[in-house]
């Protein structure tokens, strides 16, 4: 910030020169207008006639001095002096307003700085959290997570804990002689729990689509099977359906149809994803590669990335529909067994990741 070298009028300095309009706060922007005195001029013009008491108490000392001068020089120079006094008062008033606004902005900046420092702390801690057992560098996910992603990571941690609890509850319930209604409640809450995850992912995708695509919140073994930011729905059906004993003919047909339509939908979405990759690739590579100036390509590419959120949401929608349709085909007991199997399958994957982290295979 540049301060012009003109003097700021204080009650103690007896200057007879009118203060220059720019004053001490001259280069400072007030309300986004750089150095435009117009808002103040209008006010001042209207108030020139009634100066004195209100904002001029700082000038009283100087006024007293001028009064004595007036009587010595006579009326004619008295007019000139009053005009000068009015100008001084006007300039000082404008200066006070600008100073007030400057102080206000300083206060705001201070608050903003505090917020940024807090966020930096949080992100630093998150960086440590990510370092534990997650190969961030190996998979090329650099930099700290965007805001909203830390929340997602924490929430997902809770989600996994809750899922493990539900899986245990299902195991115990199926061993015991639990009634149909209670079992149904358990199955429904398992289903809702998966829906919660998809809802969380929708919000996270808006915050950072690349992050959700990378599956970085999952463990290594789970990430090995990643399909558009999550598990592959057809894979789930392939694992679960053969393990469900006592399926009726009707159920077998419906399950077969579900497997096929899930596969077809998945295929179509995979190809849609490839199309997005092609579009993004040609957008980035547009123009002369090697020129060194590629701002327009960056702008265009950023727009293309909006489609990534849509694709991620569509994949989660497919997962949701698959689970819903699967449960619809099955009886309560069969659905309970299916959710138990699914829960334990993911548990095993996570266990594998833990084992691998603490015990990586020896190089051959």
């Amino acid at each position, binding site marked *: 910030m540049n301060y012009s070298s003109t003097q700021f009028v204080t009650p103690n300095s007896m200057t007879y020169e009118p203060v220059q309009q720019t004053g001490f706060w001259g280069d400072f922007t007030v309300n986004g207008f750089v150095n435009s005195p117009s808002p103040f001029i209008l006010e001042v013009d209207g108030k020139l006639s009634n100066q004195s008491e209100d904002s001029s108490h700082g000038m009283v000392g100087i006024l007293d001095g001028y009064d004595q001068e007036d009587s010595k020089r006579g009326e004619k120079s008295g007019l000139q002096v009053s005009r000068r006094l009015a100008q001084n008062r006007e300039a000082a008033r404008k200066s006070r307003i600008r100073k007030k606004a400057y102080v206000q902005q300083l206060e705001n900046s201070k608050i903003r700085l505090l917020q940024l420092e807090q966020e930096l702390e949080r992100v630093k801690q998150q960086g440590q959290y990510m370092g534990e057992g997650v190969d961030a560098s190996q998979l090329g996910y650099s930099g700290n997570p965007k805001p909203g992603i830390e929340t997602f990571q924490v929430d997902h941690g809770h989600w996994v804990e809750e899922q493990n609890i539900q899986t245990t509850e299902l195991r115990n319930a199926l061993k015991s002689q639990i009634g149909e209604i209670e079992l149904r409640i358990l199955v429904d809450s398992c289903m809702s729990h998966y829906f919660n995850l998809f809802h969380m992912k929708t919000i996270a995708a808006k915050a950072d689509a690349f992050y959700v695509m990378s599956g970085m919140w999952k463990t290594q073994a789970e990430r090995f099977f990643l399909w558009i930011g999550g598990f592959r729905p057809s894979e789930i059906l392939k694992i679960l359906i053969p393990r469900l004993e006592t399926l009726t003919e009707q159920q077998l047909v*419906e399950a077969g*149809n*579900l497997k096929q*339509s*899930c596969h*077809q*939908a998945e*295929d*179509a*979405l995979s*190809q*849609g*994803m490839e*199309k*997005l990759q092609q*579009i993004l690739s040609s957008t980035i590579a547009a123009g002369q590669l090697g020129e060194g100036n590629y701002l327009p390509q960056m702008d265009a590419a950023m727009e*293309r990335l909006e*489609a990534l959120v*849509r*694709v991620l949401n*569509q994949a989660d*929608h*497919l997962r949701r*529909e*698959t689970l819903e*349709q699967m449960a*619809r085909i099955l009886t309560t007991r069969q659905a309970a067994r299916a959710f138990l199997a699914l829960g334990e399958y993911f548990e095993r994957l996570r266990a594998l990741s833990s084992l691998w982290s603490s015990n990586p295979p020896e190089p051959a």
Partner: protein
Amino acid sequence: MDKVMRLASENGLVIFSKSSCCLCYTVNILFSELGVSPYVHELDQDPEGKDIEKALIKMGCSAPVPAVFIGGKLVGSTNEVMSLHLSGNLMPLLKPYYSFN
């Protein structure tokens, strides 16, 4: 909107699409996998494209593109098509439009 309804009724299967939209491409792929050839109307190549988009939203489509019409009736966007397919209700709707290539 007249143009929308005219196109929808003239062709049994219509997808309102945009050439750069990957979900439009997804629905297109799914339909060809199911053995049907829809009439695809690209909005980015139609001077009235913006108006058609607005009309489709007004008609209740969850997204302007892709917008799928079967037998002159609005079925919906990608979500609706996927839900229909997984619940086994899409194929019966497409039956009259199978092409034997």
